């Protein structure tokens, strides 16, 4: 910084700017980058509890043959591939419907759909678990309507357990994404729709040719946050199925937890697994930027 006598207004603001930036930079260094580097170092070590010793890349080679890790990875990607698109499309459709100015009680509907995402993850997981229990509300309802004759084993059957997890996350997060789309929709100039009306475009055509392209940056944003959120999935699996039956629903985050706290604690190997998650999130975000972000450069 140039040192001149008597700071001008500009210098003063600059100085304060630096103070603010330094503070947050220091905090990020301390609480984000330092742990990341420390984790990388830990991931090169192995051993039980506090008896860690340096093993180089052995943890990463062990990953290649670890069937439970592969299962956790498979489960997590299954949630991702099915749940994220379903949720994004659902959120988009609901947002478009609720954005219609002619719709009555819009506020009530918006609140109702947004409400799930202010509930605590653990609380809603436990409620989901009780609703979908063998003698829970959902099974009782289906049996009362004579749709099924015996209760669906939502938690003890590997396939239904996965479906249950997907239903739960979708319920919790659809409203959250809907809010982004609603705010995006309000930024679309109404005259564009008017012009389309004059040209005689159908509602579906307006949706695909105007709404979706105009919302592209927001769709990209929600897809990335949902993707990384799903990759870090923990609370729901832990509380609804506990990863069961027999690891059929275990997620990567839960496997990391198990390695640290359920099995013989091996923090080195757990750190290696968490680095795989970091790597996957980086790669996926990169791909999504490449596919969805190119047009924004114009």
């Amino acid at each position, binding site marked *: 910084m140039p040192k001149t006598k008597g700071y001008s207004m500009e210098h003063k603001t600059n100085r304060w700017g630096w103070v603010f930036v330094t503070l947050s930079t220091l905090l990020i260094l301390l609480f984000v980058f330092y742990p990341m580097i420390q984790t990388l170092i830990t991931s090169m070590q192995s051993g039980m509890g506090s008896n860690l010793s340096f093993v180089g890349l052995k943890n990463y080679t062990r990953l290649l043959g670890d069937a439970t890790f592969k299962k956790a990875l498979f489960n997590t990607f299954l949630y991702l591939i099915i749940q994220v698109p379903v949720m994004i499309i659902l959120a988009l459709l609901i947002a478009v419907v609720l954005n219609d100015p002619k719709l009555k009680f819009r506020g009530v509907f918006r609140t109702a759909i947004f409400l799930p995402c202010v509930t605590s993850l653990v609380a809603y997981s436990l409620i989901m678990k009780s609703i979908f229990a063998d003698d829970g509300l959902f099974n009782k309802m289906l049996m009362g309507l004579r749709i099924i004759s015996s209760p669906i084993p939502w938690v003890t059957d590997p396939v239904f357990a996965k479906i249950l997890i997907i239903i739960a996350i979708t319920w919790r997060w659809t409203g959250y994404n809907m809010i982004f789309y609603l705010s995006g929709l309000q930024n679309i100039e109404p005259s564009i729709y008017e012009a389309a009306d004059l040209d005689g475009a159908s509602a579906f055509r307006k949706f695909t040719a105007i709404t979706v392209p105009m919302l592209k940056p927001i769709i990209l944003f929600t897809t990335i946050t949902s993707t990384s959120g799903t990759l870090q999935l923990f609370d729901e699996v832990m509380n609804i199925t506990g990863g069961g*039956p027999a690891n059929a629903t275990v997620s990567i985050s839960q496997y990391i937890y198990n390695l640290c706290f*359920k099995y013989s*604690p091996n923090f080195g190997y757990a750190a290696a697994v968490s680095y795989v998650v970091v790597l996957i999130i980086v790669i996926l975000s990169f791909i999504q930027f490449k596919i969805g972000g190119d047009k924004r450069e114009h």
Partner: protein
Amino acid sequence: MKAKRILAALLGGIMMLSMAACSNDGKNEGSSAGSSQAGEETADSLTIWAWDDTFNVAAAKTAIKYYAEKEPDVKVNVVSMAQDDIIQKLNAALSTGTYDGLPNITLIEDYRIQNFLTSYPGEIKELTGSVDPSKFADYKLKFMTDVDKIYGVPFDSGVTALFYRTDILEEAGYQEDDMEDLTWEKYIEIGKAVKEKTGKAMLTLDPSDIGQIRIMMQSAGEWYVKEDGETVNIKDNQALKDAVAIYKEMVDSGISKQVADWDSFVGAFQKGEVATVPSGCWIASSIRAAEDQNGKWAVAPIPRLGNNEKSVNSSNLGGASWYVLENVKGADTAVKFLAETFASNDDLMNDLVSEISLVSTLKSAGELENYKKENEFFGGQKVFEDFADWTEQIPAVNYGLHTYAVEDIMTEAVQSIVKGADMEKTLQNAQSQAEAAVG
């Protein structure tokens, strides 16, 4: 503009407050537990961690009452916490060497203690000299002993028993005599009759918790690891293979009800949906909680593996013991507390028998007055005497370090075998996976 500033100031204030609150929290926990000041081995207050309010926590509270008569100056608190939370907190704190907020005494499950002793050397206090090994059952001491050094005070027995509903079995045509000295093969046969005549399931099975297989395996003196506690013993473990075959038969024959967790397991027998509960004796307190079933239950020895000559009608499931943390201030006081209570006090044990249905691992427990009482809930049976007899017959095994890591691999293997996968091949796979996990 002004509003923004006020908002910023408010936010800043909130942040600072919350930070201050955090650090305060730490201090409070520290002082209540007696923080770690090296060199100070005595303290005037102690903290105990335990799980299960109706069982372990209640036991600790009774022990505190006894100790207060002897040492009124020492204040002892017990904190009730889920077992998983205790494990997680101990792991997090011991691996980083921060002792603030840790308890002086903690309960640790027998399956896990070797793990803690190996993972964190020097953290769990040696109690040799304060605990008389000749007073406790041998199988129990084995978990917490390293050559001659004893690290814990044995507590409850995990001796297994077959709890059964006399009324349901009678309806299916079986008397109490038929339930003695069963084999699992015969048990399944009875189960089929029960299912056919009463429509009720014989037992519950939880696909994520294969305690049933652990019971059968230990009844033949085998475990997931060999005697050294380290060599994985899955693919050539005959007892395990026999156990898995029985498990598959239990599912295939339709005599089992699938449950998902502890609550649904307990709920099933409390609601009268199953005819039997083969489990550890500590489940008695939960069975007795269903007061409407008073007098309808009886207890028989656990069945044995009919195909396996080594298998006996006795095994173990769970069970825990008390440990002192070496580096938390007040370790010596804590040792004294345990020595005066759980390690020696017969009166305390006698009270606990009636209060929480404790099956103690003290050898002298059989002489306790309350042990000889007839139990009204179990149709007048002297259940504690039976438990004590069976405890002596439990085949001792070395649980080693990795029970839960191997168990998780095994739950998957068992489920795929139940679904029809080849047993030899699946166990071979499980063996190599387990070897990688413990290596």
